[in-house]
């Protein structure tokens, strides 16, 4: 008998510490598989953010760095510039990347750093217990928008892909989701493409991954996916915003 699907080598044996049904785990697997498939495990390094995925450094089985909240792109820049022979990605949540780390992600992208960014958007601050994120939807209740996100006062959700696409340098920008097996298979392609471009030193690659946070949304994992399909996808439309490798501008 032949094993046709099992834990990729680029994942350690440590079980994820995520909540049951949390899709961070799926995103991890996709990255790990892409690293394996591209044969990069010996020259890959990832930057864990501050957020639920803070322990990502325990889960990926290659060199990892843990960055200060929001600063993963700066840390990645430092590593990539110091060791151009390494391939570097950051893994960041929506609070990390789109709030405190706004400047760092925009300027790393603008410099066209040769790194990949995996941006897991679950519309909330998972780790700290469900506060509003920059990507929280209008009227959505969180612990810091207890009466719903009022856009006039608290701002509108920010669409990072659209914003990044105003910059000249990024080579590849795509938004995908993990809300069904089919979506995951599409997401896998995007993640694999980013890693491949990374391997080929094409430039800055950015994949936004629409995810869930069953715990802080207060619903079970399956309902969470449905909620995200109905509410997040209409606003955060999956789309390839740029792919210079395939002539998409």
């Amino acid at each position, binding site marked *: 008998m032949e094993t046709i699907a099992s834990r990729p080598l680029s994942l350690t044996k440590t079980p994820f*510490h*995520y909540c049951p049904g949390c899709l961070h785990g799926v995103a991890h697997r996709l990255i790990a598989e892409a690293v394996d498939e591209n044969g990069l495990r010996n020259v890959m390094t990832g930057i864990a953010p501050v957020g639920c995925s803070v322990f990502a450094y325990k889960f990926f089985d290659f060199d990892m760095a843990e960055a200060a909240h929001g600063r993963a792109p700066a840390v990645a820049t430092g590593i990539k510039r110091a060791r151009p022979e390494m391939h570097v990605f950051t893994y960041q949540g929506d609070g990390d990347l789109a709030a405190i780390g706004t400047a760092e992600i925009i300027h790393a992208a603008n410099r066209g750093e040769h790194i990949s960014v995996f941006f897991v958007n679950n519309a909330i601050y998972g*780790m700290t217990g469900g506060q509003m994120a920059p990507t929280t939807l209008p009227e959505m209740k969180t612990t810091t928008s207890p009466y719903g996100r009022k856009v006039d006062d608290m701002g509108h959700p920010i669409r990072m892909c659209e914003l990044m696409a105003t910059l000249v340098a990024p080579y590849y920008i795509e938004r995908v989701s993990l809300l069904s097996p089919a979506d995951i298979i599409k997401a896998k392609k995007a993640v694999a493409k980013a890693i491949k471009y990374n391997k080929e030193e094409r430039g800055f690659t950015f994949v936004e991954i629409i995810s869930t946070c069953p715990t802080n949304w207060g619903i079970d994992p399956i309902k969470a996916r449905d909620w995200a399909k109905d509410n997040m996808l209409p606003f955060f439309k999956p789309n390839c915003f740029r792919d210079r490798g395939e002539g998409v501008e």
Partner: protein
Amino acid sequence: MKKEMICAGFGGQGVLTIGKFIAQAAMQEGKEVSWLPSYGPEMRGGTANVSVVVSDTTIASPIVSQADILVALNQPSLDKFGPNVRPGGLIIINTDMCPHGIKREDVVKINAPMSEIAKELGSLRVLNMLAIGVIIGTTGMVSYETIEEDLESFLQAKNPDLLEQNIAAVKRGIMIGNSK
């Protein structure tokens, strides 16, 4: 009088609430109280525990290193905190989740299949109220009346339908406590 208590269990078992009700009631009865939860890593899961001190005089340290009372709702909690109970102290054990018990002869142990009883009473959710009952039934730390009052004003606001079930659980707990 000074009583130091630890309540411990899995995340969802409501141990923090057990502590809160006891501390709240004791405060209303004129005692000094403190309630100190463990707070886990910035994410879900795992175990939870709370240290409660009730005293006639100012409470210096809210940390309970030697407990008078331990409420252990699962085995890991019993293993972890059991040894810290003062000789002569009390351990309330949810036998459903503590298959191995604890080997100590110098303490009073109350063993009850609390998860089962809670389910019988309608829902695992009243496990914590059951535990409160056992505590007051055994120790008389606070009076039943105060707990009832607090439960009423708490559930009135949140969910009046559940009041009866919860009160029943406290009462059943008291019976268990008294009987030992």
